[in-house]
């Protein structure tokens, strides 16, 4: 079985005929069974935090709907009371509110340091998932380059993943950014 067949089997994406053919093969082939079982076990592990992330993402959207970002608040540099703390878990990364800088009208994004973080991956994207800008570094803040132009009327989302030295990751979860609120 190739990888695509195994993945399709696990995703229940095969036709009944193909599924039966694959299962007949799996009965006879212990190596493919091991591949299927190993991948399934991994996916199960990956799914567990994802449920939390999905919940956190939902919470972020709900919170964003209630929370109108004022310019004053944007400069207050207080932790956003959106995703991470509401999720009630210490395994997430705390995000701070973006700051609109007066000098060049750019935006600085900041987040709390994670112990043992080897690097941080910052991603700014549109709500449909299209990346606008991404950056990997060791600092706990990043300035949006002047070359990146954001639509004032658009909404964006951003997140930071801390890649820890033990290989695990922590994430801020999705943070909402309302550009129209960024005044100076």
């Amino acid at each position, binding site marked *: 079985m190739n*990888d695509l067949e195994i993945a399709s089997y696990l995703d229940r994406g095969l036709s009944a005929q193909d599924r039966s053919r694959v299962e007949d093969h799996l009965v006879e082939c212990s190596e493919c069974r091991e*591949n299927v079982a190993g991948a399934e*076990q991994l996916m199960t592990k990956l799914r567990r935090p994802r449920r939390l992330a999905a919940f956190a993402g939902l919470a972020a959207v709900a919170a964003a709907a209630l929370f109108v970002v004022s310019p004053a608040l944007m400069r207050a540099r207080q932790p956003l009371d959106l995703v991470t703390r509401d999720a009630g878990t210490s395994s997430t990364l705390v995000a701070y509110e973006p700051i609109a800088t007066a000098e060049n009208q750019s935006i600085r994004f900041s987040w709390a340091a994670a112990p043992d973080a080897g690097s941080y991956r910052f991603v700014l994207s549109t709500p449909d998932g299209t990346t606008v800008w991404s950056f990997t570094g060791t600092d706990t803040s990043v300035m949006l380059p002047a070359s990146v132009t954001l639509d004032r009327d658009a909404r964006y989302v951003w997140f930071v993943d801390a890649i820890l030295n033990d290989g695990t990751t922590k994430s801020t979860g999705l943070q909402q950014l309302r550009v129209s609120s960024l005044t100076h």
Partner: protein
Amino acid sequence: MDSTAPLELNRLLLAPHVTDREAAWDELIARHTRLLMAVARSLGGDHDDAMERYSYILEKLRENDFRRLRSYDANVGATFPTWLTVTSRHLCLDLHRSRFGRLRVESGTDRSDSLRAVRRALLDLTEGDTPPDTIVDASSLPTDGLALRGDLDDCLKQALVRLTSTDRLLLTLRFEDDLPASRIAGILGMPTPFHVYRRLNSVLAELRKALQSRGIEGSDG
């Protein structure tokens, strides 16, 4: 590339320029870092081992103008994360084999033990008071004293052939691979482990009925 493939993959594979491609590659990896790291860690070892596997996955995914990524076809029925999980795990196994030889496939029993476990399960089912989650412990099988011998295995094999492919795989995963019901449920797409237990009991009852119809009684022969 199919239109239902993830946007970041389409952007990578359709990027007209090297700079666009590199940006799309960064985006794709950023989006799936957690998955790839989980795969890299899943084969054990220390942090360096995991990071070596992680690097190897990235290297192989980029190889030959992203040949592996281009082989993903959303029309076949797999989501991209699932395909990426399977493929990257496959790559990790390849790396391990290149260093240390073939991994031993963990299997609780061999095929003959599997048949014996099915026989035992049939016997337990006859007695009727065995909890469903304990009827398939192959390691507890006695080496003698089982009633079903000789022709029984042949009849059993014939009865197994008449089962659906899913039921045969169910028995294989349980009796040959010794997997717990929770993992079998995940593999076969059953909602809970209890569905696995119920289906196991049903299949075993079906097998027993098939054997009885051929004049074979399991519990005392």
